[in-house]
């Protein structure tokens, strides 16, 4: 049995099948589509992976176009759809999209931070229409700190309610714990909370530094000592909770020896559609200025997957410089993260500096470690969307 992750954020090395029976065009279809329905959100998380320039509501794709994109994804052989954002539950047509995707044969996952538009009735309806799984993010176990981080008054309380509703509707719950230096001391309590909330899965995700998170890196990056302590606690909990709670653990790749397998390889496993319809090889791809993206408004998904220059640019191994080119791991990690290579070295075609073979690795590691030791600066908040106390 081979196992793949259907979202690009996990560390799991992808050794999926290559059951290409056909001889000719060899670009295998992606496994999953990430549908970023909107950039609007009730929260203002300073670690958000959305681009700094967000797309306005008026530019969002309409229901009909999303349905066409879903049909095209199925036609290509994709398995799963992740409804994400921004906050996907701020779209009034989420029900229609879940129903359409389910009937077309996709496995539907909702990635939410909670919102004023998500309550028990709506969750139950979504479950009836075919939603299979809910992934809910948390910022801390203490409301005050959580709401300071998420920048939303009453946000933590709403998340707790939402978790209870998810369970009441019989939907499986994954708790997504976004960890960094401002909450990492509560990792043990976060694990306990996931158990208490009845989650079957916990994703302990250290902040990854692009988009808003890179802007706020000094406020987030933990020290290597904090990270080691966290890793020990997670490993102990994994053993103790075996068969009860599955824990996925993503370390900040600044402190890794090898880069993460970003998106399972560029243009290889996933396609991300932005709220306005741009097809991106990953949700942060717009941070790379040299890339131009095609829209699902102008082309079919299959055409984009095979022909869009943005997807071709870093697909496979031909683009790689050394040390990647001669590395025996080049078809394991696919050179790591292109967005991070651009953000930290100024050239998206460089080896991801998270790799210790990168000539930039030492310098960047030193810089981040220094930031981690200094006092944390104030957050720069991502403000875009409705708040919990604002009528809409």
């Amino acid at each position, binding site marked *: 049995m081979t196992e793949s992750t259907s979202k690009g954020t996990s560390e799991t090395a992808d050794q999926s099948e290559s059951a290409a029976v056909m001889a000719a065009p060899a670009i295998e279809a992606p496994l999953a589509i990430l549908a970023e329905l909107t950039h609007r959100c009730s929260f203002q998380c300073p670690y958000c992976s959305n681009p700094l320039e967000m797309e306005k509501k008026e530019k969002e794709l309409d229901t009909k176009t999303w349905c066409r994109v879903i049909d095209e994804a199925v036609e290509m*052989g994709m398995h*799963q759809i992740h409804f994400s954002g921004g906050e996907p539950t701020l779209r009034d047509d989420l029900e229609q999209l879940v129903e359409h995707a389910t009937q077309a044969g996709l496995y539907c996952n909702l990635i939410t931070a909670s919102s004023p538009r998500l309550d028990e009735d709506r969750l139950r309806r979504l479950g009836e229409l075919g939603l299979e799984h809910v992934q809910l993010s948390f910022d801390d176990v203490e409301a005050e700190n959580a709401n300071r981080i998420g920048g939303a008054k009453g946000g933590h309380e709403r998340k707790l309610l939402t978790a209870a509703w998810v369970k009441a509707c019989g939907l499986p719950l994954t708790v997504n714990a976004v960890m960094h230096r401002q909450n990492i001391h509560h990792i043990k309590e976060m694990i306990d909370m996931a158990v208490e909330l009845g989650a079957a899965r916990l994703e302990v995700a250290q902040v990854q530094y692009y988009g808003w998170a890179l802007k706020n890196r000094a406020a987030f990056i933990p020290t290597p000592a904090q990270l080691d302590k966290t890793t020990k606690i997670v490993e102990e909990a994994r053993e103790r909770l075996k068969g009860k709670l599955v824990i996925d653990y993503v370390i900040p790749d600044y402190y890794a020896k090898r880069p993460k397998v970003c998106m399972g390889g560029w243009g290889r496993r996933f396609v991300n559609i932005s709220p306005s319809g741009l097809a991106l090889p990953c949700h942060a791809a717009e941070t790379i200025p040299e890339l131009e993206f095609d829209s699902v408004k102008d082309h079919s998904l299959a055409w984009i997957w095979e022909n869009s220059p943005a997807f071709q640019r870093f697909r496979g191994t031909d683009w790689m410089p050394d040390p990647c080119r001669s590395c025996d791991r080049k078809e394991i990690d696919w050179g790591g993260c292109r967005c991070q290579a651009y953000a930290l070295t100024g050239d998206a075609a460089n080896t991801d500096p998270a790799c210790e073979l990168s000539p930039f690795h030492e310098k960047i590691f030193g810089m981040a470690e220094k930031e981690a030791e200094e006092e944390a600066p104030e957050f720069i908040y991502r403000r875009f969307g409705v708040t919990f106390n604002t009528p809409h």
Partner: protein
Amino acid sequence: MTDRVLISGDTVPKLPSHVKLRFNKQRDQWVVLAPERLLVPDETSLVILQRLDGEACVSTIAGELAEKYAAPAEVIEKDIIELLQGLADKGFIVS
């Protein structure tokens, strides 16, 4: 939170409602779909997974497959338990 599912001969295993064994027409391939995971069963695993109906216990299934494939039931039962315990620990099998 539920207790760990321990698979033995008496266990009646099944896929939880949110884990789907599906045939992908476009790829001509069976897959197990779970939250953020995708499993591609090999031929043996597929035969076992297809037999899970929430009624038959592991020993019954092992007996049937032993007959069908002319192999010792104890060996098959051991293989089934190993496969299903691994899946149960990831939340892909319940009893």
